[in-house]
């Protein structure tokens, strides 16, 4: 192949229409993000296994045969551990993923390339949602086969759609944390937010049995609103209305995005 003729070739190549090119970039970018998940199981496996393990222990073993209001414990905890799993998948894939790639200078190099950042974040979002759905399917299977949970198909679908869409506010929050935290501190910071928030929001133990202090705190936590509306879909007792929770989650998303944009703009230097 002749190098000397390459500039001529480039002139005669007709570029693809911009929207077609953008679609192709988005498809390839999404594939790239997906491969990070599939080819690095050390990162994805805990995020997949922990919600399932917790659900098996608390929802299935510990809560066997018990009722919580109108629903079984095994059914109730599908919504709360579903929320737990979805939040973790989004916080870690955005927060830890971005922080570590910033640490390697990769995000800086990507910035110098003609890739609109929104395409990269959308690709991460799509993969985060797919991963969320995978966790939910695992939980649902456990509930169906080991917890005798039986629900109409429409309810399963509604629950899966609500929880996987409800992961997006946490993707936005993860994005902000990914740009605010250093590459080494990100996992610790995110765990310090994720785990206590999950407990306080009633994702591990039902809201009803939380100590009084946490019952007061819970309605201020976005995770609580995600789980409560999931419980509503199942027909369990809830403590927040859908408009309340939606307003809360939308506000949380807007604040997270604002923080994310601020942190992204500030992040002009590389780490080393």
């Amino acid at each position, binding site marked *: 192949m002749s190098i000397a003729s390459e500039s001529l070739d*480039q002139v005669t*190549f007709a570029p693809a229409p911009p929207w077609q090119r953008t679609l192709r*970039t988005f498809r390839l*970018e999404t594939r790239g993000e997906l491969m990070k998940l599939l080819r690095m199981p050390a990162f994805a496996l805990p995020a997949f296994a922990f919600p399932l393990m917790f659900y098996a222990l608390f929802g299935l073993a510990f809560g066997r045969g018990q009722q919580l209001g109108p629903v079984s414990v095994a059914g109730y905890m599908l919504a709360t551990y579903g929320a737990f799993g979805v939040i973790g998948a989004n916080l870690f894939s955005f927060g830890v993923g971005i922080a570590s790639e910033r640490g390697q200078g990769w995000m800086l*190099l990507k910035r110098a390339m*003609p890739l609109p950042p929104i395409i990269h974040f959308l690709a991460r979002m799509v993969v985060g949602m797919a991963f969320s759905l995978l966790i939910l399917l695992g939980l649902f299977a456990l509930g169906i086969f080991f917890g005798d949970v039986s629900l109409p198909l429409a309810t399963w679908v509604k629950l899966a759609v609500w929880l996987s869409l409800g992961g997006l506010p946490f993707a936005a929050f993860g994005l902000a944390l990914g740009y605010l935290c250093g590459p080494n501190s990100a996992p610790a910071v995110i765990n310090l937010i994720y785990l206590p928030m999950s407990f306080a929001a009633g994702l591990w133990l039902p809201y009803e049995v939380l100590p009084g202090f946490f019952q007061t705190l819970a309605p201020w936590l976005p995770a609580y609103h995600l789980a409560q509306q999931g419980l509503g879909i199942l027909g369990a007792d809830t403590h927040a209305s859908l408009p309340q929770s939606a307003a809360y989650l939308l506000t949380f998303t807007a604040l997270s995005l604002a923080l994310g944009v601020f942190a992204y703009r500030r992040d*002009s230097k590389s780490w080393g």
Partner: protein
Amino acid sequence: MIAPRSPLPAGTVHAGLQTAAQLASVTQRYGKVTALERIDLAIGSGEVVGLLGPNGAGKTTAIHLLLGLLRPSAGTARTLGHPPWSMAARTRTGAMLQIAKVPDTLTVHEHVELTASYYPRPRPIAETLDLAGLSGVENRLSGRLSGGQKQRLMLALAICGGPDLLFLDEPTAGLDVEARRELWRLIRRLAEAGGTVLLTTHHLEEADALASRIVILDRGRVIAEGTPEQIKRRALGSQIRCTTTTDSATAAGWPGVLNVERSGSALRLSADRAEPVVRRLLALDPQLADLEVRTAGLEEALLALTARKHETAGQEVAA
């Protein structure tokens, strides 16, 4: 002032060249630290410019400014006639950054295919792989590549968009001699095909091997500029100091004299070779005193720079 400036003022592109990238009177501060101070730098189309200097000299800052990763505190940066952060500039540039490490989970081919898709008129993938010396390992995961191959993958990502202007920030840092030579060969091939390149390095040898023009930066200022031959001649030359009545204009006219400076009664000259100049000085002024001859002024300086760099290799942060 370690070395004299070349006859061309810094920031002037050789006649007949179009400017591909330019920093005009740019100052860059990080808090209280001034990384670049009113620097002028221009890269002509088709030129391979080597930016040489120690840690903290401002080399990486200059590249980040021209890539639009930083906005200058003062002055202007233009890349291919556009603001460096604009899509118009970015679709026509490619870069290797010093600490960038690609995610391990894609194959070489997938990485190149993805990055090339960002550009409107990318190079064919097979050609990119060939130019970067990666044919044969295209299906290997990037995490499984050797150090030299990883660096060549970074080069592949820099050139896959078919850029008109290439930025290489310390492209061979951390490579062994063989891998470094291989990368030089590939860069030279790109340059010979008419590419415009700005590369930073702390090795005079590397700048000499690749660049058509060398700009030496130290503590945010351009301290010398010229062709590799001019720089080397200066680097290998001698510094002469003496107390004499001989006038600087006279000495400046002598063959082999590169630069003359007078401070009070002292005259400082740099020259290709000290002996003929000293002979003339002594002949002209029998009263000449305090004669001092030091060889390799710039080389010494460059070696010192290089030594400092080696001690702290790998710790440079956006300097």
